[in-house]
């Protein structure tokens, strides 16, 4: 085992700021990209289903009148 304790692990031999600063930003970027892409998909699907419903509605109006 390389690390004797959790604080030893977090300290990274005095380079904790640089190592965790890299890994933290890496994590933030990946998480951010996943959130952005899933939001894009969700708003798109919502938008598409609105279009679909309005065309359905129009068709119904056409047949009833």
């Amino acid at each position: 085992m390389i690390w004797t304790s959790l604080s030893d692990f977090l300290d990274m031999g005095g380079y904790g700021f640089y190592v965790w600063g890299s890994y933290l930003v890496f994590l933030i970027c990946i998480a951010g990209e996943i959130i952005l892409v899933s939001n894009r998909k969700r708003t798109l699907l919502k938008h598409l289903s609105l279009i679909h419903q309005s065309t359905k509605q129009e068709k119904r109006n056409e047949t009833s009148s």
Partner: protein
Amino acid sequence: MAINWFKYSSPASFYFLAGKMIPFFSIAAVILCLAGLYIGFFVAPTDFQQGEAYRIIFIHVPAAWMSMFLYVVMAMWSGIGLAFNTRLSSMVATAIAPTGAMFTFLALWTGALWGKPMWGTWWVWDARLTSELILLFLYIGFMSLQAAIDDPRRADKAGAMIALVGVVNVPIIYFSVKWWNTLHQGASVSLTQSPKMATTMLTGMLIMSLACWMYAIAMVLIRTRAVILERERHTAWVGELQGAA
């Protein structure tokens, strides 16, 4: 058995194929990432020169590799889209750009945080660093140019020009450490020489690279699906998709 590969060059069939592939790549990315980080932090020994600071390598090198690979793949699909006028190829190129830009930013960021304790500076205008920064600008240029043009097919063609011209930068980045005297160290992995680092370090780095590959493929597939829906929203099959949902 002959497989009709051209079937999947239609956005509609690719949409469903990609949907089936995404879970596999996502799961592979998570498993490989966990394995890579475990090796990186608990198996790989402390570096005799750089102490624990070298552990940035497990994300720095994969991010830098991905930034270059993804650019080449993006330029290739752009070129195919331009040459054969295939819509799907250009959509894939559009979908690759943000992920590529993210990896380029991460390569620069982790490099700065590694440079500070090792070289004593966050940034130098050295060949490797400068050419990598140009790569980031190329990705941003590609994305902004496509976003600025309303007609998607024209945007594809304009973007393809940037992508194809910019591809000359990739070998410059790769060979910069050989061609010029740089502060940046030479290639970590070379085909002609045996690895200079401990096997466990190399294994951790390669597993993390594979994880980044799987992540990038999953991300590109997801984004390509979104681009397909956006561009094909007026077609019958997208309408049916909504009817079924």
